[in-house]
């Protein structure tokens, strides 16, 4: 393989990895956009979604699409309950307090999953046969295409919901000013519940796709990808839907570039260094608008 062909192949790999980050980052950024909460438990809902999908396929014997829908519904329920029990009582508290309950929720979901589902690594049922699509000298797998396609599709759907529907309008109103939204007759509690339901359902879809892509799920699978997805969301500009996808793809490509041209042992360090440098020049993320400082 000549080096430029390999570079192209690595770009494809990087985009596929980036799509994984983007899928998780979408739900992250959405919840953040509406209620300004770093939902640390998002990565764990993603893990739960993967397990729900796993049991829907292996125990309930569902085929892939109904299994994904079941899992999304289950995760949405968990997300709404989580918000109701752990976050809502703290809505008027300092943001850092909610962050700590989110970390607590994350730990709780991890250990509960470990106890209920077992600590072992489970192979995910391979619902889609594997295919390799040759594009001249390079190739892409059907699963990589699927993940990339779903990430872009969900981004478009989410963007449409947030910007062109009544629900989205209400969400944006809540995001700007909760009290004013309440005065305008918007049921703030319900809008926030809906946000969590959507964010968690997105996470579940991501969990199943990624579980299938890598063929492995475990109770801690949400931890590192969750962290990386959060970083990706911040990189793209947190709270901005297309930003999550841009940030995710960029992170994926950057990581693969580091491996290709340099040392794979330093991959994570270089990825974080790039992040810090980008943030220094664009303090609100790549797609973030410069905030106006209010005096």
């Amino acid at each position: 393989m000549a080096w430029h062909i390999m570079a192209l192949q690595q770009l494809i790999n990087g985009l596929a990895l980036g799509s994984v980050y983007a899928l998780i980052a979408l739900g992250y950024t959405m919840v953040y956009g509406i209620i300004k909460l770093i939902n640390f438990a998002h990565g764990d809902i993603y893990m739960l979604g993967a397990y729900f999908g796993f049991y829907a396929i292996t125990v309930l014997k569902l085929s892939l699409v109904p299994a994904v829908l079941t899992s999304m519904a289950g995760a949405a329920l968990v997300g709404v309950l989580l918000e109701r029990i752990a976050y809502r009582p703290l809505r008027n508290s300092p943001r850092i307090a909610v962050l700590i309950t989110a970390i607590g929720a994350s730990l709780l979901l991890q250990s509960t999953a470990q106890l209920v589902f077992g600590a072992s690594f489970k192979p995910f049922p391979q619902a889609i046969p594997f295919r390799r699509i040759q594009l001249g000298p390079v190739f892409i797998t059907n699963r990589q295409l699927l993940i990339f396609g779903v990430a872009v599709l969900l981004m478009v759907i989410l963007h449409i919901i947030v910007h062109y529907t009544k629900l989205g309008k209400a969400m944006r109103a809540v995001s700007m000013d909760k009290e004013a939204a309440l005065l305008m007759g918007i049921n703030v509690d319900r809008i926030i519940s809906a946000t969590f339901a959507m964010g968690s359902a997105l996470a579940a879809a991501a969990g199943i796709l990624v579980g299938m892509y890598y063929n492995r799920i475990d109770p801690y699978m949400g931890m590192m990808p969750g962290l990386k997805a959060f970083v990706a969301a911040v990189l793209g500009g947190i709270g901005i839907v297309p930003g999550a996808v841009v940030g995710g793809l960029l992170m994926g490509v950057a990581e693969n570039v580091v491996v290709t041209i340099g040392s794979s042992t330093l991959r994570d360090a270089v990825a974080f260094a790039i992040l810090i440098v980008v943030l220094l020049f664009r303090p609100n993320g790549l797609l973030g608008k410069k905030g106006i400082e209010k005096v």
Partner: protein
Amino acid sequence: MNKLSSLIKGIILLLAYLVVQLLERQGVLLPYHVQILSLCCINVILVVSLNLINGFTGQFSIGHAGFLAIGAYASAYLTVVWQAPFLFAIICGGVLAGIAGLAVGLPALRLRGDYLAIATLGFGEIIRVIILNTDAVGGARGFSGIPKYTTFGLAYLMAIFTVVVIRNFVTSDYGRACLAVREDEIAAESLGVNSTYFKVLAFTIGAFFAGTAGALFSHYLQYMAPTPNQIGFVKSIDILIMLVLGGLGSITGSIVAAITLTIIPELLRGFAEYRMIIYPILLIIVMIYRPAGLLAGNELSLSGITQFVKGARAHGNHT
């Protein structure tokens, strides 16, 4: 009054130390307990120093374990490879961490809130990956054979030193400037407070003490592993939890929370798999009922306690 109260506090602290020593000699306190108490002291240093950055200056750092790592590894390298005296190693560990704090403080000039949090998290992970790839300090195998120099007495002394220095700092003019930066950066600037300077100062001092805590930690455990729960983001988050639980901007809160949260996992150890379910539930419940932390912005004080006791006595007399 102030001098008298300081004297009384000093006597109480000395008595506490003597009591521990006495109980240890009598065999009531086992090495097991003394080891936990030492860890409590190390955690107190970590939490109080993070409080200076997050609580008093209003920054949002979640990379505190990075400073701990620098102090821990640098000091261990000095005592193991160069046979340096421990005190010298502690100071060097602190100074190196302080320099790193200076470097991390600089991005803080441009970044705010969650963006700063991510930058500090990234910094912490970079430190960890560098250590992981440095063979001179053991790389992935970890750094072993560190002498056990950390005694309870030393950790206790360092914890008191940290608390006194940081308390005096936050009640000084410098500290007031930091508080001003936290409350309203623009207003502070317009009053002539150089917010840049104070942010970097807070990061440097906080990092210095985290570095000394790291030095104590590596010579306490005698082994350092570059794992997330030892020097990575898991450790940073542990420290953050202690800080927020105690209350941002409350030094006594930090102390109480650091001690409590060091002891609780130990008490729960017998519950095996259920341990890590009980702990987060406790955490969530406490945050729901005390969202601003156990001692939100308040301090436990001697006069407070005497007033409380007097009040209780007066109450008792009435009935």
